């Protein structure tokens, strides 16, 4: 999928799998309407994690294309540095934060979110290996599929698409694939959090 078709189609793949927990909670959250809020979005990602920066760049592009008036800021964070994290999570005018992190960073960000009085709308974890992507998500207390797998080809684009839907309040779908034999150990594990003011 090239960038153009990704931007147009990537976030709205037709024959996909809906994440079961999201639908109900998203409807409650946004009154059943898909929205791209006007308030500024902060994308948090560590510079040292190239996957995360690539996905954040793509997300920023998608957000700009979908709603040019909406602000989007990116923050380079270090999961071990409380000051940089706190600075990003208290950025003025931001009302939503999407963080793409390694597992340890996600633990720290969740803890800081509580300290700062932020809400946690969605948390997802993605294990990627040659066999596929395994998704474990959680929204508003509802567990999503614990073993939802899809082909891992173009996994960064697939996850970016998922994160875009999560961020914009759309019940997310992702193209179903045919996962191959799993290795039992992820080569990449990413955690993603959507925090709200």
């Amino acid at each position, binding site marked *: 999928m090239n960038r153009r078709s990704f931007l147009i189609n990537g976030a709205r793949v037709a024959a996909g799998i809906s994440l079961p927990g999201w639908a109900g*909670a998203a409807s409650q959250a946004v009154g059943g309407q898909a929205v791209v809020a006007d308030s500024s979005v902060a994308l948090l990602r560590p510079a040292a994690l190239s996957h995360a920066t690539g996905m954040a760049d793509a997300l920023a592009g998608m957000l700009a294309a979908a709603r040019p008036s909406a602000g989007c800021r990116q923050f380079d964070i270090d999961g*071990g540095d409380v000051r940089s994290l706190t600075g990003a999570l208290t950025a003025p005018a931001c009302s939503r934060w999407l963080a793409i992190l390694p597992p340890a960073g996600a*633990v*720290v960000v969740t*803890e800081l979110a509580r300290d700062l009085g932020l809400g946690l*709308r969605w948390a997802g974890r993605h294990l990627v290996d040659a066999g596929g992507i395994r998704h474990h998500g959680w929204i508003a207390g509802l567990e999503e599929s614990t073993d939802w797998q899809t082909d891992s080809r173009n996994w960064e684009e697939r996850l970016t698409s998922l994160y875009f839907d999560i961020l914009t309040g759309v019940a997310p779908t992702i193209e179903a694939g045919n996962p191959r034999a799993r290795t*039992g150990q992820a080569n990449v*594990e990413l955690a993603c959090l959507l925090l709200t003011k």
Partner: protein
Amino acid sequence: MAAKRKVLPKGIDAGAFATALKEIAGIIGPGNVIVDDEKIMPYEKIMMPVPDHQHAPSAVITPGSVEEIQRIMKVLNRRRIPVYPISTGKNIGYGSAAPVQRGQVVMDLRRMNRILEVDPELCTALVEPGVTYQQLYDYLQDNKLPLWFSCPAPSAIAGPLGNMVDRGIGYTPYGEHFLFSCGMEVVLANGEVLRTGMGAMPKSNTWQVFKWGYGPTLDGIFTQSNYGIVTKMGMWLMPAPPDFRPFCIQYPNETDIVKIVETLRPLRVAMVIPNAVVIAHTLWEAPCTPVKRSDYHQGPGAISDAAVKKIQQDHSIGAWNVYAGLYGTKETNDANWKIIEAVAAASGGKIITQEQARGSEATQYRFDLMKGKPNLGEFGLYNWRGGGGSIWFAPVSQAKGAETLKQMKMAKNILGKYGFDYVGEFVVGWRDMHHVIDLLYDRSDPEQTRQAYSCYEELLHTFAAEGYGVYRASTAFAEQVASTYGPIKRDVEKRLKKALDPNNIIAPGRCGISL
């Protein structure tokens, strides 16, 4: 706007609960009563191998003063609503901020975050529950006070009061934290305020310098318990030594733990090495180095000994890595350094000095912790297995080599049986060792989560059968752990609970104590 909360305290209907929250909002302001799902979710996230909903709070309240807590306790007492107090809620791997039982109201004391006093001459501090180690560190730095404290590994975000109340440990000479606390203020279930030790006496100025006061010493019963809400705590600070010389000694074989302990114990007991020494296994060091597990092990099951050996060779990590420091003047440290060199040479260890360790993440965060500099280096452990599952199994051992080897082998065998790695360390007290094991598992995998639960149970009961008790436990296993200490102790705890909290409203179930 997020969905409203559907979780209720046990035995309380929605109407009565709403009324109680309204009363509390009248005391602390509606903005400090949290019932929205999204805002509560960060309080519900746990790493234990049980479903989140078992520890879901019904609401969160954030009082800002002792007086507000006193008034809240009267409301909760009248309506029999259980409350779960947290200071900073960073008991990660032991239950985090989530209540011990579903439906309890979390009382988050983070707004009470004042450093009330630091006495640079007596080297003491008095802090509120929401003060973090980072905050205290910054205060000492900003005010150019040459004082250190001891902090645990997740210190930058955790706080001294909560850690001391849970009897946590750190890595400086003041590493046994409760031992270096001095004086508490406690709000009791009926709203009365108790000050322990010398704090009970009006006008006393010795609250933070003399622990005992007159009559029974009460501080201990407010640690790892649910008899009151600790709202202030005194702590002793350590004068920054003129010369600090941290070091690591690496040993090549797992069985070297015997001679390590036998060699170090006399130095620790005699306080030649004054700090809480850490003896960390390869697999504790590897994730913090960082090493990727998937580069050495694919597929299910525990990582093999051969792979662990390969990690040691590839990354210059010992089978055991001893972290300790000398704290003194240059002259005393020069003298003691000769002892350390001789001991390392005699026991087959390789010394790594501060200069040699430069650039090593795993070593640097340890050296920082040994001088009380908060950091989050140890969170690297959560990248090892991935999946967000972690539970601490922490039995106490005598500081004897044969005992530590026995415990290590027992733990490794049980963990391996369930497919988990031995990620462990020993933290040396004076005569004891805290054997701390991080049972890391993939919490998004239901089967692995079940296995982790079973594994912990087997660890607990196998160790208990040998007379080994744990010093601290997660909320999910509080009841089981308490039962390993026998019925008489539990009965006394229950009688104390009945006397101090007859309506059973403060954290019932915490540490297995309930009516």
